[in-house]
């Protein structure tokens, strides 16, 4: 509004005071006029909201509406009228010399770690990591939120996470997507990645027993490096300033790292579904909320397993803010093959058609007001049509069958699967970063 020449004031709840100030400054208007109200405003009665409007701004302690009227009418100060480019420092390029303990404390106290012990990124260790790629240290790998990061800057984070230099091309491919784990949302995002191709065996990634657990160095540290990159390469993840997830998300410690079991899977590999060749090594990134175990939800008798129904029965519990990721153990995949699902696409299609809810439920879902209706209002299909549907019309959980991503991994000790609120983002070549 201000850039368009229209005086504006933002109403922000007091919980977001630091965030509002830092965002305004980053976007070039540090003195943006803001009126604060108590937090939260949602869930309040009409009388309570009226009292807020008739009451005081909890930050300035002046009448709330006077703050608003003044923000729109009081002439600008010289500071309000400043313009032009201003450089922003990233801080010192090196720390020390100091002892390992002191450096570790420094990194931790300056919010550059995940509060678990790190490998101190000395010049020698970073040089060793850089040998894991043929790319030059100062090459820009990716950008996120205006920040850019080089091969060397990514290498520092890979060292801190405990990665072996042979993992470095995977880390660079993740960084090249521009998707940094630990993004900001009050809803506490979590992240997942799927790794396909020969790199899985070259690095001895685990895609058998305990595939998603802490049982292999590459799975553990590649995932951790992604979170450290989220802390350090972009705007950072400082609670209350650049991170505001209400409860946080324990997936953020090392994310969901999935090496697909391409040998045991009866279906096309995930990266091939995305247009890559089987012999290419690829990482695909997802963002969302969570993963949850599914087993025995429906029809899980010894002779009538119905895994298709078990999977689809979990879908209505997922939010429609994200698409869906289904991680299937190879044993479950073989049982689904026996049921007649000889391709992932056939299973995706059945799941999509059998995961519908009524239009009434759809419109009454928690996120409908903030996520689904605004898309309908914009005219985006199928949301616009779905929003107008009769109450009893059945609406699929997601717009398309391939919004349900399916990946196979696990040790075949039990016929398990996991389902999650996870949005496929993009896939990036790992080979490119060798």
């Amino acid at each position: 509004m201000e850039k368009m020449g229209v005086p504006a004031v933002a109403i922000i709840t007091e919980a977001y005071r630091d965030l509002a100030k830092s965002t305004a400054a980053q976007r070039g208007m540090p003195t943006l006029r803001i009126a604060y109200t108590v937090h939260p405003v949602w869930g309040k009665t009409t009388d309570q909201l009226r009292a807020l409007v008739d009451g005081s701004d909890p930050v300035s302690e002046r009448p709330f509406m006077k703050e608003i009227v003044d923000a729109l009418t009081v002439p600008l100060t010289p500071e309000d009228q400043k313009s032009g480019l201003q450089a922003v420092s990233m801080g010192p390029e090196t720390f020390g010399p100091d002892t390992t303990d002191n450096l570790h404390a420094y990194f931790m106290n300056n919010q550059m770690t995940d509060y678990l012990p790190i490998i101190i990124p000395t010049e020698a260790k970073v040089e060793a990591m850089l040998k894991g790629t043929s790319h030059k240290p100062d090459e820009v790998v990716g950008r996120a939120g205006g920040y850019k990061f080089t091969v060397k800057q990514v290498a520092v984070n890979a060292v801190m996470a405990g990665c072996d230099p042979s993992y470095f091309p995977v880390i660079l491919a993740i960084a090249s997507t521009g998707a940094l784990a630990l993004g900001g949302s009050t809803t506490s995002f979590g992240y997942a990645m799927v790794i396909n191709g020969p790199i899985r065996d070259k690095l001895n990634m685990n895609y058998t027993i305990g595939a998603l657990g802490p049982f292999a160095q590459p799975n553990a540290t590649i995932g951790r490096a992604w979170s450290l990159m989220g802390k350090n390469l972009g705007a950072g993840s400082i609670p209350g300033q650049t991170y505001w997830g209400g409860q946080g998300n324990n997936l953020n410690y090392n994310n969901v790292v999935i090496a697909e079991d391409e040998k045991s899977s009866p279906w096309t590999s995930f990266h091939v579904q995305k247009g890559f060749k089987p012999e290419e090594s690829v990482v695909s990134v997802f963002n969302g909320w969570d993963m949850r175990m599914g087993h025995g939800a429906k029809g899980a008798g010894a002779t009538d397993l119905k895994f298709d129904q078990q999977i689809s029965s979990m879908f209505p519990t997922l939010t429609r803010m994200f698409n869906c990721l289904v991680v299937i153990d190879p044993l479950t995949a073989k049982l689904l093959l026996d049921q007649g699902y000889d391709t992932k696409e056939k299973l995706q299609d059945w799941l999509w058609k059998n995961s519908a809810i009524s239009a009434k439920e759809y419109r009454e879902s928690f996120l409908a007001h903030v996520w689904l209706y605004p898309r309908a209002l914009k005219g985006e299909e199928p949301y616009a049509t779905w929003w107008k549907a009769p109450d009893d019309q059945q609406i699929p959980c997601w717009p398309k069958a391939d919004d349900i991503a399916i990946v196979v991994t696990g040790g075949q000790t039990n016929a398990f699967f996991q389902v999650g609120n996870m949005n496929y983002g993009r896939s990036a070549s790992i080979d490119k970063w060798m």
Partner: protein
Amino acid sequence: MKRRQLLSLLGMSPALLTSTQAKDKKHGYDQSAPSVVPAEPKYVALSPKGTPPPVNRFPMAARTIARLDGKTVYLVDTGFFGADLLLQQVAGWFERNMPSVKVVSRKKAGTYPEEDPKLWAEIKANASATIMAVGH
């Protein structure tokens, strides 16, 4: 008092000292050795930070009106929880306290990070001022 004198007073043989020292040596700690702690090595660590973009500062819109009376003010709900209901109360306040202000309420289309160019154009054409509520 020296340790040998103390042991003699206690009726113990000073030879005990020798055997104690020998025992300590067996465990790798020589009490007779000078207690010098070797200096801990020091390292230089590299910063893990990315490179931030420069900030491009913009001047705010000039406040050319001293009062809102008789002006058009847009109330924009950006889509977060509760913003619409809060803005209804803001509209009510204008009706009660500054009835000459023409209030226009709009909900921004698209999810909250998205721009709404159509609405922005409408505001630019019609509004003297805008109040945006992001709620929560």
